[in-house]
């Protein structure tokens, strides 16, 4: 039986109604989220980056929704907020690129557009790379959440 049928048959509630799952995920979710943020923010320093970090963060929200119920998950990140972040992340990327055009160097320029480069190896370094990584991370996380909700709810 597909997941969407399961949710519909229980009036929007996921049938996983288990104390152990709830308590474990309540304990684990903050750590997953912190780890996701860590992977995103260290994209220019260590393996990983925006796509993987965003996927981890998005997965934590999906886990929350699965182990409690859809409403609790939806309260964490409401629909319109998810789609706002979705557009906002991509828009932020494109607009960061435009800085290069305004400065007069080139679209999506980093160093030559005058972004502060910092000391290589520190958290706040690499100029536009950090900014773009954060935007793409937000975008990927909200993509996963939005896809999850739209597919699970079918039409709305």
């Amino acid at each position, binding site marked *: 039986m597909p997941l969407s049928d399961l949710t519909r048959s229980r009036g929007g509630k996921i049938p996983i109604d288990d104390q152990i799952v709830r308590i474990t995920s309540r304990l684990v979710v903050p750590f997953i989220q912190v780890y996701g943020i860590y992977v995103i923010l260290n994209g220019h320093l260590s393996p990983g980056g925006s796509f993987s970090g965003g996927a981890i963060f998005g997965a934590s929200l999906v886990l929350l929704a699965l182990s409690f119920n859809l409403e609790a998950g939806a309260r964490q990140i409401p629909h319109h907020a998810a789609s706002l972040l979705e*557009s906002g992340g991509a828009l932020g990327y494109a607009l960061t690129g435009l800085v290069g055009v305004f400065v007069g160097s080139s679209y999506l320029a980093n160093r030559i557009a005058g972004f502060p480069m910092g000391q290589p190896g520190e958290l706040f370094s690499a100029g536009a790379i950090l900014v773009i990584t954060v935007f793409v991370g937000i975008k990927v996380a909200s993509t996963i959440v939005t896809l999850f909700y739209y597919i699970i709810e079918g039409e709305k």
Partner: protein
Amino acid sequence: MGVSEHFPALIVVIFFITAFISPLLYRWGRKFSAALVIVTIAAALGMTVSLLVTVQQAGTVFYHMGGWPPPWGIEFKADPLRLFMLLVVISVSLWIFIFALRDLQHELKKRVIGWYYTLYSILVGSMAGIVLTNDLFNLFVLMEICAISACAIISIKEDRECLEASFKYLILSAMGTGCFLLGVVMLYMATGYLNYSFLHLELAEAFNYYPRNIFTAAALFIVAFGTKAALFPLHVWLPDAHASAPSPSSAMLSGVVIKIYAFALFLMFYEVFPRTLLEAIPLNEIILWLAALGTLFGSIFAMLQSDLKKMLAFSSIGQIAYIFMGIGLNHESALVGGFYHIMVHAVTKAMLFMAAGVIIYSTGVRDIKKLAGIGRVLPITMIAFTIGSASMVGIPGTGGLISKWFLAISALEIGRPVFVIVILASSLLNAIYYMPIVINAFMQQEDFKKDIKPVPRVMLACLVIGMIFIVISGFYTTPVVTLLEQALALYF
């Protein structure tokens, strides 16, 4: 120079930015996002024209993304030929979008029209990127965007047939994209470059060491772009997808999207692969014969259809084959013919789909046999349909003749008269299925019995613009032909 030197990047990026903003605007109403898309396309049109003027004065413009020079970064290239394509793509998109504003209201649910605008804007942006980019991997990424958004503007219609057709299209075009990526990998392994210009230089030498790799890559490119552009035996997805889509989507897909891939194949053969490869293995012969079969079979299939939009979709298979024939003949004036046909067919087929859309909007009739006598109730629409049909057949005074003329002349020049016969035969076949519709529409005495909804003026105005353009392109050919000859001289 100021901001104008950033035009090659901005033409693509403004479409993406518009698409990202427009979902935020839905809350205030659809009108804002429609206006935003129109402003964006118009701005892109302005930038293209200004870039064309610059390029004609100062030569080809290169743009380095992020300021990194070619083998390291992504390069955009604006030469006269690409700008010609860009001009066709963007102006036809603007024209179709204005038509779509009225037509969509009866074809789509209210709550998805806003998303249609978003998808449309991304589609146009990705096509502009495919035309401008000078980097193979960037081309792959843009092809992905183009494929998904093209599927989405079909499946957005509430119709089982649309879902099925768009799913078929999605799978086949994903297969095409996969073949393309495999080919890119092979070329990268053999040369170490992704930039067209660097590949072109490096492949001539690498062909001695890795002939099979490069040949396979070329074969994969033919399959990839052939699938996406509906070259004859790979066309199976096209009729369903183009026939079941909402009319503006059909116009866009049949008019512009398939030509973009034909253009990309042209770039592969004339900018990426070296001449020695094409002399060693006659790949263009394969394209040429497939195109010749396509012109004939596309028309024969079209004759058997009873649904108006399906007939137009099959006719596209025959017409895209003319463009491939231009590429396959490997001769300058054949390519002039091919590119002229890109322009003429983009306008003509889009206009025919618009006319079909108007007929469906106002009467709900899709069956060709039931169209008898419709010329009396929808005169402007059927006059547009007549002129479009004439251009498809290649009657003097329409743009369709000019491209066929160039193709036939160059086939004679290089001593292959068999293709002249193919062109003549397919024109005859075109006449066999287009002309009865026109004749029945005007000559039939019986009254048209269905209820007629009045047609909005905007839709009729769009049809009139198309008619005027087709007639002008049949008489006043010099500026475009000169532009194309100058642009193509760079390749020979």
